[in-house]
């Protein structure tokens, strides 16, 4: 399929996740929907002096961003 943005389902701590890839300008972000009552979360991988780190956009949900970032990385590594 031509240039299809990826989307897939996964699970984190018993909660189902729907993860969708979006391109905003030159940046790829991932929008995460949860099967519990949580608001959707947007994450992207960013450069820091200590290497690339998954970040929540906007700030405030960093722990979730890092956990879900690992799932996204793993998904593409094994694809």
């Amino acid at each position, binding site marked *: 399929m031509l240039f299809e*943005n990826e989307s897939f389902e996964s699970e984190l701590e018993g909660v*189902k996740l*729907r993860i969708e890839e979006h391109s905003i300008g030159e*940046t*790829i972000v991932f929008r995460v929907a949860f099967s519990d009552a949580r608001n959707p979360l*947007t994450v992207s991988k960013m450069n820091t002096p200590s290497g690339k780190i998954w970040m929540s956009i906007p700030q405030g949900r*960093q722990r979730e961003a890092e956990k879900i970032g690992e799932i996204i990385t793993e998904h593409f590594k094994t694809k």
Partner: protein
Amino acid sequence: MCYYNGQKVSRSEYIRLMELEKAVANYNFLDKDVQEGFAYGPSAVLKPNDLKSNFDIVQMEWGFIPSYLKTREDVKKMRTGYKDVAGKYHPPLTTLNAKGEELLFPGKMYRDATLKRRCLVLSTGFYEWRHIFPKNKRTGEPLKTAVKYPYYISLKEQEYFYMAGIWQPWVDRQTGEEVDTMAIVTTDANYLMKQVHNSKNRMPTILNNELAWEWMMDDLTEKRITEIATNQYPTDQMQAYTIDKDFRTSVEPARAFTYEELPNLEVINAT
């Protein structure tokens, strides 16, 4: 140094993050529940106004939804495949892309939209995979499993460009949700894309400014519609280079990345 999410980042990265934050806040993600299995993202699209005197830039859901589908559940079934009550399996039907040469075939789901609702999809470039079959070291025969290399394809000296599209307004009869959906028109791959997208030999129908306007605004004969829908953008005005296989999770997905083992594309300035 600045801090974002408690992480130390450079000043320039901080500015980038703040800009991204604003862009995310203004972006329409068309959020859906997890259970709904919504899979296809929104895209920036140019569509004519009612008088066809000008156009609007709007977001549409990428993935054409034919009007005969009544609910999101029906859409999900179409996109993922399903078993009917008799146990017969109906394979997934993807409607992200529509073949330019078949748009107007009698009975084709895209026919009405092609005649009445043509649009342009904005793009700065796209990604595609090139399949290379390594040779068996003992026999010299190609292996059955390909190694895939991602490429970034764009137009030379053009920041953005237009791809032919067709669109379809759709209403969920259960929830009342209204959404405009679209498919990108494709054509046979040109010399460059035959090498890059070598598993399918297809490419998007890219239009120059004149053809883009004609496609979107003019009353066209079926013959002319098919001519434009199958337009093959010239190889010598396109460029393609390899990128990191991890590009989807990369900060700069379009950054060039070299694979030593990968043969170069053949003369790409041929047409």
